[in-house]
Structure formats: structure tokens, C-alpha cells
């Protein structure tokens, strides 16, 4: 297959994937830093490069509502948003997941107000972690592009039938230009295939009601079916990842374990920081410190067993959270990791950190300090702290 080497920002890469997928319907409302995705895509619509029906609405609440109506009518549906926009979609996100509509959302991670801040952290996406959406994080524009191509296949799989958000980090990925390999339109379209709707409310020969009231008699069963679909999503993400590797040459899993085989000290992070951490790992290994990284790609479904298995030989672990859950304990990622370790019967010394809120820079040196602290913890020189802020002015 002839791949095109290009320079693309995260937003350009996501818009390019959407052009190649050519969805039936997009309904969106602009918000920094995701605006550009739909702006570029609107250009494709205007130029006739896609056949998409683009619905410009008056709010994100309406955007997701239009997406729900569209997807329930048997149309492949996509949108894009960020931050307050995602928060404004909140109640409809739960509805999309509950009635099992495989909508694809390009989400650019950005701080949630207050304070008003347009830069990257994961507080918007993490706030929707219980919404029932599959959530994939990307390290760079290439991963965002690849994930957008896999997203419809994962979401529309009959054992899953759940909406999916593919996320990038605001400005760091969304506006950062990098080398990227683009695939031919025909290959992408062949991989994605025809839309397989779970049902169709516009099928007049088989009229149905969607989103009806369900009370004590069936809500429990309704939720259990959704729960099992999210379990199935773990398997399907791996299956689609393997198939993607056969076609496009790069395999994706639920996590990426970077130099973890012999690692004494492992940090866990997601998004663009994983890329920074890889450099820190290299530099530390040159100094003789056996550092490793677990990059979580799929936050929902959460790969608890997979992470626990890799941490089984680690001497100390740190989880880096780019959002606050104000639990007084740890950020959301650290909380999930700890859950998984408890279930696996493991008690590894674990320090949790909060970093990068509102786009605060995280440097290679900051991450190396985390690994050095892990060494101190493993050597008994210090105790693991929880929700420690990295780079705070004190």
C-alpha cells in the first residue's frame, strides 16, 4: 500500500480521517480547540469531497441530540467537540450510550472552567467517564488518525454497539504539526466498510420505538446489557487493532507497554505525555535506571487486568493524572489503577501525581524526577504520596 508522508496537526489528521470515512451525517458546534476539525470538514462538504449532511446547530446539546436522531435513523454519524462543549452534551451522551448508538466523537481534551482556560488537561473527558462511551486517548496526530479509522469498526460491532470518543490533547496534539502517514482513501473505506446500524427508526415496514420509558421492570436488565457491551468492547478493540495492523502495518491494543519487560519503576499516563515520558525512559535507561511506561490508550473500557499483569514485577509505580477528581485521594486514572491492583491481589508501592492542569508544561526533567522518587520509595527512603502536584509554585 502506498502511504503518503505528510505534516499534519491533530485536528487536520482527524478531519482527514473523517473525509475518508465520509459519514452520512455530522452535527457540530464550534469550540476551541476542536473548532478546526469541523471547520476543515465543512470545507470538504462545501467542495463536494464528502456526501455528508452537515448540520450546524446552536449548541453542543443540540449537536449531540441531532447525532442521536441521525444515528437512530440508520446514518453513520460523527461530531467533534471539547471542554465546555462536551460538558454541555453531558445528558445526551448518556442517552446515546444507553440506546446504543455507535456515534463517533472527535474530542480534543481541554480544561473545564473555572478558571476559564482553553488549554489541555483531561478534565472534560474524565468528567464523562461514566457516560458509557468508549474513550480512546492518542499520543500524537498519527494515533488520532488511526483511531478515527478504527472507531466506527469498534463502535458499530454487533457485540458492542456503543458510542466512541477518540481524544487528542488540546493544542499539544490538536495544533501541533507532526510527521504522519496517511493511507489511500480506498483502503480506509474498505477497512471501515458499510454502516451497520443497530436499528432504524425510519424503517417504516418495521416501526419501532426508541428511547421509551423503562421502569423498575427492565432498567436493570437494560443497564446489564450495556455493561456487557462495554466488556465486549475490550475484545473488539483488540480484534480491530489486529486487523488494522494487517492492513496498515501498525497494531494498537488497550495499552502500550514501553520498556516494561525488565522495568523496576513504571509510570502510567495517557495522551501526549506518554510521548514525553518515552524520552525520559530512554535517558534514565542510559543512566542505568530501569524505567518503563504504561500508556493507557483505552480508558473506557479500562484495561485493569492488563495493567496489573505488567505491574506484577515492578518495584514502584507512579500514575500521572492530567485532571483532578477532588476525591482527596488521587486522580481518576490512579483510582482506576488502584482498583485493578486490589482485584489482582497486588500491593505495589504506588504514588499518584496531578500534573499539567490547564496546559501547564510538563518537562522531561519533571518525569525523570518522578522515576527518581519511585527509586527512593522502592529503596525505603520515602513513602509514596497521593495526588502530589508536579511543578506547582510553592
Amino acid at each position, binding site marked *: 500500500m502506498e502511504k503518503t508522508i505528510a505534516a499534519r496537526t491533530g485536528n487536520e489528521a482527524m478531519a482527514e480521517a473523517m473525509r475518508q470515512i465520509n459519514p452520512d451525517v455530522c452535527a457540530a458546534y464550534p469550540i476551541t480547540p476542536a473548532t478546526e476539525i469541523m471547520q476543515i470538514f465543512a470545507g470538504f462538504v462545501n467542495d463536494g469531497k464528502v456526501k455528508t449532511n452537515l448540520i450546524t446547530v446552536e449548541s453542543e446539546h443540540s449537536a449531540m441530540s441531532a447525532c442521536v436522531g441521525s444515528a437512530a435513523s440508520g446514518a453513520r454519524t460523527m461530531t467533534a467537540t471539547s471542554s465546555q462543549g462536551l460538558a454541555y452534551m453531558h445528558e445526551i451522551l448518556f442517552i446515546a450510550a*444507553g*440506546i*446504543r*448508538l455507535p456515534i463517533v466523537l472527535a474530542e480534543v481534551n481541554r480544561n473545564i472552567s473555572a478558571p476559564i482556560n482553553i488549554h489541555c488537561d483531561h478534565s472534560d473527558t474524565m468528567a464523562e467517564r461514566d457516560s458509557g462511551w468508549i474513550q480512546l486517548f492518542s499520543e500524537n496526530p498519527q494515533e488520532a488518525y488511526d483511531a478515527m479509522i478504527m472507531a466506527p469498526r469498534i463502535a458499530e460491532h454487533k457485540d458492542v*454497539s456503543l458510542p466512541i470518543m477518540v481524544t487528542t490533547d488540546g493544542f499539544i496534539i490538536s495544533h501541533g504539526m507532526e510527521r504522519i502517514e496517511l493511507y489511500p482513501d480506498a483502503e480506509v473505506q474498505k477497512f471501515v466498510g458499510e454502516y451497520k446500524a*443497530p*436499528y432504524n427508526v425510519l424503517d417504516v415496514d*418495521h*416501526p*419501532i*420505538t*426508541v428511547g*421509551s420509558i*423503562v421502569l423498575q*421492570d*427492565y432498567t*436493570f*436488565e*437494560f443497564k*446489564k*446489557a450495556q455493561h*456487557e457491551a462495554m466488556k465486549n468492547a475490550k475484545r473488539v478493540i483488540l480484534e480491530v487493532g489486529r486487523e488494522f495492523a494487517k492492513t496498515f502495518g501498525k497494531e494498537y491494543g488497550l495499552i502500550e507497554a514501553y520498556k516494561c519487560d525488565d522495568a523496576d519503576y513504571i509510570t502510567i499516563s495517557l495522551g501526549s505525555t506518554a510521548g514525553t515520558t518515552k524520552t525520559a525512559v530512554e535517558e534514565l535507561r542510559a543512566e542505568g535506571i530501569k524505567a518503563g511506561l504504561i500508556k493507557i490508550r483505552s480508558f473506557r473500557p479500562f484495561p485493569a487486568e492488563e495493567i496489573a499483569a505488567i505491574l506484577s514485577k515492578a518495584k514502584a509505580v507512579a500514575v500521572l493524572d492530567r485532571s483532578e477528581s477532588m476525591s482527596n485521594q488521587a486522580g481518576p486514572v490512579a483510582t482506576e489503577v488502584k482498583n485493578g491492583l486490589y482485584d489482582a491481589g497486588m500491593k505495589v508501592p504506588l504514588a499518584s501525581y496531578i500534573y499539567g492542569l490547564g496546559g501547564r508544561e510538563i518537562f522531561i526533567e519533571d518525569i525523570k524526577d518522578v522515576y527518581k522518587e519511585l527509586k527512593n520509595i522502592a529503596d525505603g527512603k520515602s513513602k509514596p504520596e497521593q495526588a502530589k502536584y508536579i511543578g506547582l509554585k510553592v
Partner: protein
Amino acid sequence: MVKKPELKTWKDIAVGGFVESGTAEYFHTGGWRSKVPVWQKQNCIQCLTCWAFCPDNSIKVVDGAKGKERAGFDYDFCKGCGICAEECPQNNKITKELKTKDASLKITPSTGSGKPGFDEKAAILFVGLKEAKDKYNIK
């Protein structure tokens, strides 16, 4: 022991809980009623206004000598909203007459039931559950 009804398991319900059309027929919502409309055939002018306004298709209509004719209420589905009584032209006419006689009278076409002079001429009364049962034999 209360026998549990036969219900589907979580594996049997349709994806996203969608339901086939027409199932409302099996779900009798009349039990939600807290007030009851009572049709007085002798006063009805057969305009079918109530049929047009009923939000739940609870006005029974039959084929009569001059075309469609209003029959009774379908109490399996009537939720007792009172719109039929409020919109009934006969009820409106009698309400207006009573108010002309007594300007201080505070009634509407759906709240006139029981007031002197109303029940005799109104086409649709709108009464409480107990009165419906005791006086009109409607459960």
C-alpha cells in the same frame, strides 16, 4: 407467595431497549386517572370535538346512521386530563349561560360538575373517582 410475572432476561431485550410498535395497547394507563370524564349521551350534539382533542385516542367512535358517531370513553387508556370536557361546545354553552345568570360564578366547562344547573345539560361531566364509581358505576 406472589407469583413473579414472566419477563425477558437481559440477554433477550433488544439492543438499546427498542420496542416493536403497537405495544401501548397492552399497557393500560387508565389506572393513572385521578378524575373521570362521564359522557351524557342525551346532551351530546355529536360534533366529535372531544375525539379531535383527546390526546390518548380514548373517545370511542362507532358507525351510526349519519356517519361516525361518538360512543363512550375507553377507560383502559383515559388518563383523566379533562380536555374533552373543557373543549366540549355543549359544556361551553351551558357554562356561558350559567355565568350570564350569575357573574360571580367561578366555573369552567371542566369544573362545572356538581354546580346547580350544570349536570342536567352538560355533555361531559368531570368528576372525582368516588363519585364516578358510586353515582355512575365507572371503576
